[in-house]
């Protein structure tokens, strides 16, 4: 029974991802006093892309064609790591957060290669900037998760969530606040949101993620867009699960699961509002200010790790 719920969790993460994108876009429109598109718009976008045909540049090789599938495959593996309504997930008991981070890195590696294959300047530019951002973002990503793992004495995500569930919600620990700050900054950098990257830009010179996927079209583009939506959803769900998991079902009953699902939707909506506010309130950082942004995240996460020695005493 637990396995069935785990499978449903993973499916909810994957299928609900375009909805997350739509909701964030709608909140941003609201904050910017626009009408905004419907929250179900990303689904119709994906359906439209799947119906179209694949256009391929003449310089493309096998790597170009295989990138969307590798990216999607690694991202759904990542989605299988995150618990939503109960403190376990498909791969959460065996796989730990190192595997989580490196699966995301694998998707990014192949996407950067796909950017090169178009043979144009913009793909290389997107890949070069993505290389800068991702190489500097890995350290704070891992360090903030390490800080939480040290406190929880578990390295697998299910163990960390279970430990947090047992803690008193009113005991704000310095480690958790610092780790949350650093992880939130990393989530913004990794998913290509403002202020690091503008996901809705049309100017190639301001693109990072969009630059790498410029040459993709049709179903390939649909897989890639879906994969980046799943990535955003999975990382938001990770933030919820690691830092505010209270309300997760401890027993396998319909009532408990339903309540947990409702609570998760509420918490995720809160995070999405926060994301929309940050995106609308800050201007995009100049390219060479992004290392400063990530340097601050690194220092905060290193401080979180150092603080674990002070807490555990």
């Amino acid at each position, binding site marked *: 029974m637990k396995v069935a719920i785990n499978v449903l969790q993973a499916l909810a993460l994957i299928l609900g991802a375009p909805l997350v994108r739509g909701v964030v876009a709608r909140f941003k429109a609201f904050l910017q006093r626009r009408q905004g598109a419907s929250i179900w718009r990303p689904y119709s976008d994906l359906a439209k892309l799947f119906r179209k045909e694949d256009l391929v540049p003449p310089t493309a090789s096998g790597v170009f064609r295989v990138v969307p599938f590798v990216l999607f495959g690694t991202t759904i593996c990542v989605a299988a790591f995150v618990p939503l309504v109960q403190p376990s997930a498909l791969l959460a008991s065996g796989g730990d957060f190192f595997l989580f981070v490196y699966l995301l890195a694998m998707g990014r590696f192949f996407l950067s290669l796909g950017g090169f294959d178009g043979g144009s300047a913009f793909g290389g530019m997107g890949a070069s900037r993505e290389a800068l951002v991702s190489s500097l973002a890995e350290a704070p990503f891992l360090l903030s998760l390490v800080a939480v793992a040290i406190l929880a004495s578990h390295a697998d995500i299910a163990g960390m969530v279970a430990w947090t569930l047992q803690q008193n919600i009113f005991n704000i620990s310095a480690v958790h606040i610092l780790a949350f700050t650093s992880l939130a900054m990393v989530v913004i950098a990794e998913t290509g949101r403002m202020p690091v990257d503008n996901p809705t830009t049309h100017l190639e010179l301001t693109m990072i993620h969009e630059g790498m996927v410029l040459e993709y079209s049709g179903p390939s583009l649909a*897989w890639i867009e879906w994969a980046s939506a799943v990535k955003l959803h999975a990382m938001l769900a990770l933030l919820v699960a690691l830092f505010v998991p209270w309300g997760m079902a401890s027993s396998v009953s319909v009532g408990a699961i339903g309540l947990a699902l409702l609570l998760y939707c509420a918490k995720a909506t809160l995070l999405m509002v926060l994301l929309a506010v940050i995106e609308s309130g800050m201007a995009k950082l100049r390219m060479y200010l992004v290392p400063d942004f990530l340097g601050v995240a690194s220092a905060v996460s290193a401080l979180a790790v150092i603080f674990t020695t002070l807490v555990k005493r």
Partner: protein
Amino acid sequence: MPLAPIELGFVFLLAALGFFVPLLLIASQAKRARSLAIALVIGGNLIGCFVAALCFWRESNPLLDLSRFTPFPFALGIDRLSALFLLLICTVAVPVAIFAASYFDNHYGEHRRNWMWAFFSLFLLSMIVVVTASTGFAFLVGWELMTLISAGLILMEGDSAERCHNVFIYLLMMHAGAAAVAASFFLFLPYSHGLGFAAIRTASAGVPAGIRTLIFLLAFVGFGTKAGIIPLHLWLPRAHPIAPSPVSALMSSVMLKTAVYGFVRFAFDFLGGGPSWSGYIVLLAGAVSGLLGVLYAIAEHDLKRLLAYHSVENIGIIYLGLGTSLVFLAHHQPVLAALALIAALLHTFNHALFKSLLFLGAGAISNATQTVDLEELGGLQRRMPVTGATFLIACCSIVGLPLFNGFISEWLTFRSFLAGSILTNTKAQIVLPLMVGVLALIGGLAAACFVKVFGVAFLGRSRSAEAEHAVEVPVSMQGGMIMLAAACLLIGTLPGILLHPLASLAQVLIPGGGVPEETLIIARVIPWIAAIILGVSMTGALLKRRERMVRTWACGLPGLTSRMQYTSTGFSKPIRFVFSSVYKPDRKIDRLPADQPYFPVSITYRSVRTTSYEKTIYRPFVEMILSAAHQLRRMQTGNIQVYLLYIFVTLVSLLAFLRFQK
């Protein structure tokens, strides 16, 4: 005395490589003799693989004592640690030899080819002697032979003045390292009466602490010079790029590992760990080498020099694992020390596999396009699909992506850092988890570098005519590369085959340990992930409809040329800018004509990275030695009465010493 089959195999391997092959090649120029010699090399190494695998998976220790024939005790034996490294050498040697069969055919004339093969097999023999040596004498003989023969192989490729200079620096640093290694052996002599490894092991408990520290430091410096940790790495980027590609593959993937073998032998087997500051020194060396190695590699666009710097980086990662293990040993945590040691040894094995594959790929590229400069390549994936696919597998492995072998060892290293938080010493509690950040940064930068390498060399448009007309390499070269790529994938998806015997090896080296359960966890999860990704890829590929080829949008211009693509230098510019305090380049821009800055006829841009180690560390050291030598020259006055005075003073002081010793 009848020899067991294992010993027979071992003797055959040694005899084939050391005696028959060189004899055949030097004696006859016939093509059949050469084919027989190559077959002997490959066959001998295959038998060596079997011998090593048997010794590694099951416990058996064959010993070959040849002391009767040599002035000093010379014995070769295969215990579990030697078996791992022997397996490493032979497993890498077989594909490299298969590759070299066509590579040497294409590149060298008849006469030189025979000499290359003779030296090649002697090189393999010297490395086998080093890892299977059971006495200090055998070890040092093999060590020196390794250096000399590899220098010979480099010089055989060509002996211009610049190459001679690089080889000179190589020999100089290797001999300095060998002197330190010999000194650390000889320091055992007063306590162990002979340099057999067994004798050293039993005697090491009785060595006083000060001498143990000295032995550790000498071994660290001596083996560090050979391994290439910063700042002792100067010879690596000079020697590796100028060797022929199969030889570079062997040097980078196997020769550096013999240094790791020596260090593990000394630090864990002989000395049984040291005080905890020794672990921190090794950690520091590993972190600095890893970071600086990958930063220097990103700035390179010569493929082989880039790969040489990546060897420095990976040796840094191995030393991170070894340092963690030493720290755990000093704090009496044998299970965690075993975990870190397994991580380091597995990374040694993995690095041998994927680094040799990378160098063979570079050899294939240079075979097809006559250049290894990244700025002249491009679009090779469509013309050389097999080379491209195997090179991609090697890139994914060295970056440490899941499903490839590099990930398993990096994962184990991360887990051993994380386990450092359970120690009670505050310094270890802070330093070890923070090393996660260091290794993450190294991994991220390595990923950036290899996106650049593969993207610029294999994808997009060709940047030169040679790359435009490249053809796929001959089948034997492909075969060698495919074998190595398959090994990388195999260990990456089914890591248990190596992890279990490594756990038993760690238990031998670190008494009191158990099997860390992390090794079991990772073996369970990875196949699932492989299945998911493979399933998605196949579903997508099956569901794919026809595609249409459309020219890339060029913003309205008539067409895109290869010069509009990103270059390797351009790709690494953001990272070089962020880390500019590391690089400190020397830039020169010439505009012609100088009086018309806005309409120049030509602009030349030169950026030379000055490695500051020569100025800040080496030159003062050399000056100090030279000035000391200059002072000592004063003793040679040329006056015969002064020399007689020296003898007289010595006699008198000896008498005084004897008198006052009571």
